[in-house]
């Protein structure tokens, strides 16, 4: 990165110098012309002062989200709901600070009129969102929004969507993603869902059901009845499918479940398996760890043909494999060096490289969908921490630490991690989110105790 910095800087300098040269030449011509006309020579214009700003003031961006207008009287409720969901999403991301609507000076009465920017500057809004929800003659909802840059006094984005009335929450998430992307330059993650293990009942007779909800905790649905013990659901990065493990009477079984259709199939019975398989980025294969005596090794299985390929063959426990987003590499946990540590190897096996070297043991590595980090659980000194490191092992940092934190999963844009935390005692686990800088830790609302979250890809 240092090299690239060195390369980049001269390039910029050159560009600005040519700019100056161009100006100088133009001015030289002007001066020459003046001289020919027999006029007094004007002084050469001073070269532009150049100021380098290498620091900033990173803070949640103040954004005003005006109540969406209802096209008809009956629409105003869902219209307001949309703007409230947008505000909640943006606030939870930690990158935005929605302004209290009570402070607004201008009441938006039309989406098509240009807002009075000075009024919004007065309340220090950097951006403004206006919108409207209208019911169409065919019964569908039309939702439209405009995103305004208050300082520049210009529209940054404006879109409209059509959907069925039940889907109004999703529309709000999609608009949130559009705003997020425009202002942060990255894809959002609001139009996504989370699969988790819902836990009810007393600790000794805990009922564990597979459940799915929107990323903001709304629309909880149960996917299993609770007659089996379910563990470690994994979302496919490309399809609306999950794998999970279920302990019935005998060996643990791995299931493949299509969330849209509810169709479920058994991938296989795998004795001694402790984590469900993870998908390859294309969703066509799953990678898993299978027990062989006292050892475990990593295998990849084609979901169509069910053909199994061995990737490691070591007298150690190799487990918890996870693909890089480009599908060329795998990270996994292995105790081949004594204690469990994280290793990276090619997707077709071969030489593995250890990337974690800290105290304690590392487990459950998971590769970010952006490819820039690997999240892990680290157990050291009687505490469990959630952390991230770069795929080469550098830049390791702990995001949160406590009695028991486990099972990190990345949001589709790789900026936020969800994990579960068990406070111990009679209380059960619950889900939390934290951004990859270790800021903005928030509890995820769930109906009961919850563990083993798995974040879906973006729905749209």
């Amino acid at each position, binding site marked *: *990165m240092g090299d*690239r*910095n060195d390369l*980049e*800087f001269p390039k*910029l300098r050159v*560009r*600005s110098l040519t*700019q100056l040269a161009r100006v100088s030449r133009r001015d030289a011509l002007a*001066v*020459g012309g003046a*001289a*020919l006309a*027999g006029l007094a*020579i004007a*002084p050469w*214009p*001073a070269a*532009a*002062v*150049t*100021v*380098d*700003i*290498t*620091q*900033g*003031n*990173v*803070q949640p*961006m103040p954004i005003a989200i005006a109540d969406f207008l209802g096209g008809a009287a009956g629409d105003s409720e869902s219209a307001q709901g949309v703007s409230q969901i947008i505000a909640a999403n943006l606030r939870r991301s930690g*990158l935005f600070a929605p302004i209290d609507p009570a402070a607004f000076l201008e009441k938006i009465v039309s989406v098509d009129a240009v807002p009075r920017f000075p009024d919004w*500057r007065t309340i220090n809004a*950097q951006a403004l969102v206006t919108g409207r929800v209208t019911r169409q003659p065919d019964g569908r909802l039309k939702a439209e929004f405009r995103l305004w*840059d208050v*300082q*520049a006094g210009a529209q*940054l984005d404006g879109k409209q969507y059509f959907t069925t009335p039940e889907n109004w929450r999703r529309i709000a998430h999609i608009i949130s993603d559009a705003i997020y*992307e*425009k*202002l*942060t*330059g*990255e894809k959002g993650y609001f139009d996504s869902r989370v699969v988790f293990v819902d836990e009810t009942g007393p600790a000794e007779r805990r009922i564990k059901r597979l459940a799915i909800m929107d990323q903001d905790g709304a629309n909880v649905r149960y996917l299993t009845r609770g007659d089996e013990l379910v563990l470690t659901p994994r979302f496919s990065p490309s399809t609306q499918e999950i794998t999970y493990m279920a302990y019935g009477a005998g060996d643990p079984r791995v299931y493949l479940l299509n969330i849209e259709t509810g169709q479920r199939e058994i991938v296989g019975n795998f004795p001694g398996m402790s984590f469900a398989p993870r998908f390859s980025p294309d969703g066509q294969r799953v990678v898993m760890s299978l027990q062989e005596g006292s050892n475990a090794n990593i295998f990849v299985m084609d979901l169509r043909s069910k053909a199994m390929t061995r990737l490691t063959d070591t007298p150690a426990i190799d487990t918890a494999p996870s693909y890089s987003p480009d599908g060329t590499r795998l990270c996994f946990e292995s105790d081949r060096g004594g204690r469990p540590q994280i290793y990276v190897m090619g997707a077709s096996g071969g030489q593995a490289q250890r990337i974690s070297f800290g105290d304690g043991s590392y487990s459950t590595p998971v590769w970010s969908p952006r490819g*820039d980090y690997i999240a892990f659980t680290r157990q050291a000194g009687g505490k469990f921490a959630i952390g991230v490191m770069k795929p080469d092992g550098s830049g390791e940092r702990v995001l949160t630490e406590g009695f028991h934190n486990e099972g990190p999963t990345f949001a589709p844009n790789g*900026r936020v991690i969800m994990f579960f935390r068990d406070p111990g005692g009679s209380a059960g686990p619950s889900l939390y989110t934290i951004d990859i*800088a270790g800021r903005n830790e928030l509890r995820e609302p769930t109906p009961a105790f919850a563990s083993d979250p798995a974040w879906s890809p973006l729905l749209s």
Partner: protein
Amino acid sequence: MRRNWIISASGHAAVLVFGLITFASSTPNVNLSDFMPVEIATPDNISNATTGVKNAPKAIENPKPLADKIGEPKPAKELAPKVVDKPEIRTDAAAAAEPKPEPKAPPKPAEKSEPKPEPKADAKPAEKAEKQKDKTKPDQIADELKKDDTKKPPKPEKKTPEFKPDQIAEQLRKDDNKRPPSKFDANQVAALLDHREPQRQLAAAETVNGVAALGAPTGHAAHLSQSELDALRAKLISLWNPPPAVSTHPDLYIVAIRIRLGRDHRLIGQPEVLTSGDGPLFEATRDSAIRAVISAQPYDMLSLTTYDVWKEIDINFDPKDVFGG
């Protein structure tokens, strides 16, 4: 006993000498990396660092012309763009006897420029031509030279409306001795002017006199003072909120913006983005920089006395240190 004394004394002496040498030469035990070379300069030092000095009392009293090298005094007169010297030229030209008096011209062209006034009889047009030449400052001459050498000669003729080319030709035919050279030969004029160019950079006089008076033609403009720059930077830093995603590759998202400011310390027109890039992250970074320069208005940390310096500012927004390096 005595030997013991000697041994003891020499031993002590050795220790003292050793200590003297060692401790004197060794540097104090401090962490050098904590040092930072500091030069104390008041804002005035910087903003007053101009080549031309406004209060230059000596120069007014100093009779010597400003000169960088010893040489003929003539070019020094040229540096003074006033017409004071010209009456002398006129009279000399009318007399047509003395070759020297033309102070402007170096020896070579002096002969050719001498006859110039003669054909024009009353010497007025000549004066005109001279005036125009004198008015033109050295830079202008250089500029004109570069553009076209041949354009110059016909000019003085055109500016004497009394004499049409034909008339001059007639007069020239009458006086055979002097007239041929009085025609402006392009090469000769070029030679004349070429000689002036170096004089522009190094003025020659009998003595070297480096005292500047009331600002030299080559004087620099004032700088922004350090406190103005610091205040400008601080304001922009406090207002720049780049998107966090640039932290992965900050070097790819450097945005250079040019702003133009009016005397009211506010932006003139829209900020101009000098760097190009694409993708939503570049656009978001660019927009964050534009928001910063817009909301930094008014730029009242900049003093009006240096307006010419800050009427146009290039700002490089480089996120390299925003997220802790």
